[in-house]
């Protein structure tokens, strides 16, 4: 009987997970991988409502702990899959040396802090730099619905700067990375993962969970700009 593994994965890891899947089934040809990509929030709600999921990969510890309290995740299986960095991208002309430099700008895009983890980290960083409240009061902040949208704005020159993940910065076409936000200005950017209660009983899911900790998996993750948990900094 063919085993199925249902994955619920934050959309920002789409490509990495697809490659990890492909690598995994080379050794497990009898397993069918069924990844479901979406925003961490909607994935969490699906899992909370009993949707089929064995492994949940969140872009944000908040939604992981939400599911833990809902009792949907086996708590002992929760660990970090990867880490990311926060960078500021923008059209080439501007030079940014610190977050204070953002104050001269007209428009700054970030993921909506309420819903987008990257936005939340950006908020933390700006708060730590002491510029957030003034920027917000001046209505200079454009809250994007996800990181990709913030990146799009920067790429098309609609904003002067955008906070995105280091991994996303690999996707830019016209814009460039202006500044890498120091890791001490925000919480560590973790991608926590955990097996669901159902997933814990699925041996194929457990095998994949273990595979994700393997050096082979690490290499794939690194290829897409993610660094190993605890490593601290990202590529570039």
């Amino acid at each position: 009987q063919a085993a199925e593994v249902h994955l619920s994965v934050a959309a920002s890891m789409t490509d990495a997970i697809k490659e990890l899947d492909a690598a995994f089934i080379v050794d497990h040809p009898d397993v069918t991988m069924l990844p479901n990509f979406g925003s961490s929030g909607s994935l969490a709600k699906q899992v909370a409502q009993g949707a089929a999921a064995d492994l949940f990969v969140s872009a944000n510890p908040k939604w992981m702990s939400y599911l833990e309290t809902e009792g949907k995740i086996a708590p002992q299986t929760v660990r970090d899959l990867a880490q990311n960095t926060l960078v500021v991208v923008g059209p080439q002309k501007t030079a940014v040396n610190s977050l204070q430099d953002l104050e001269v700008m007209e428009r700054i895009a970030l993921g909506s802090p309420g819903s987008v983890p990257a936005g939340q980290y950006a908020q933390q960083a700006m708060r730590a730099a002491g510029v957030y409240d003034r920027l917000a009061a001046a209505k200079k902040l454009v809250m994007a619905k996800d990181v990709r949208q913030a990146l799009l704005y920067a790429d098309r020159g609609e904003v002067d700067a955008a906070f995105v993940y280091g991994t996303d910065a690999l996707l830019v076409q016209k814009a460039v990375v202006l500044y890498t936000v120091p890791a001490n200005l925000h919480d560590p950017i973790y991608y926590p993962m955990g097996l669901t209660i159902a997933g814990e009983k699925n041996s194929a899911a457990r095998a994949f969970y273990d595979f994700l900790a393997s050096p082979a998996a690490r290499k794939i993750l690194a290829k897409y700009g993610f660094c190993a948990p605890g490593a601290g900094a990202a590529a570039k």
Partner: protein
Amino acid sequence: MLNLSPQDMQAIWLSAQVATAATLISVPFGFAVAYFLVFVRLPGKALIEGVVNLPLVLPPVVVGYLLLLLFGQSGVLGPLLQSLGIRIIFTLKAAVIASAVVGFPLLVRSIRTGMEDIDERYLQASRTLGARWWDTLLTIILPLSGRALLAGMTLMFARSLGEFGATIILAGNIPGVTQTIPLAIYEYTNTPGGDRMALSLCLVSIVISFAVLLANESVSRKFRQRTTR
């Protein structure tokens, strides 16, 4: 020019299935609701109309979330469905339901306008000729609102092709299972260099809807020829 991956082809095929199924399944309900709203005299009709319009007023994501609350395992209908062995969430059924719900107000509104424009005197004539209400419904109202029904179906089909928000919540975004064109487009926009691919899929959507539109036009023209000089 278009280079579509096998996964894209799957998405197109799924989208076509979902749009078709959602449209066809909704037609009888939409027709019944429109009939009710136009011809049945009852207080509180406005309320029903309000409910029908909900999926239009609410952001699709909210609609999807509400549907999740309804069909989820810990939802209202979940346990019942589970006892019947029916799984909705993360299946194509969910995509069909999401599309059907979101497009429903469009269908109903269109049929309604058509029904309201039927000359009452035809209904009077049919009734004096011995036709009961359901008979009049089938033989007079249905054919005379045929064009409006078709228009509504086209609207709904087109809307289904573009449905994203409710679908991704209720059906998930699982390539090859529930990933319809809009979800695939979404995925491409999350991928480096995916914009070209996204554009290809948009074009496919446009071509499909265009074909449906033309089919609708020609059928509709026949209707029109048959009913006016």
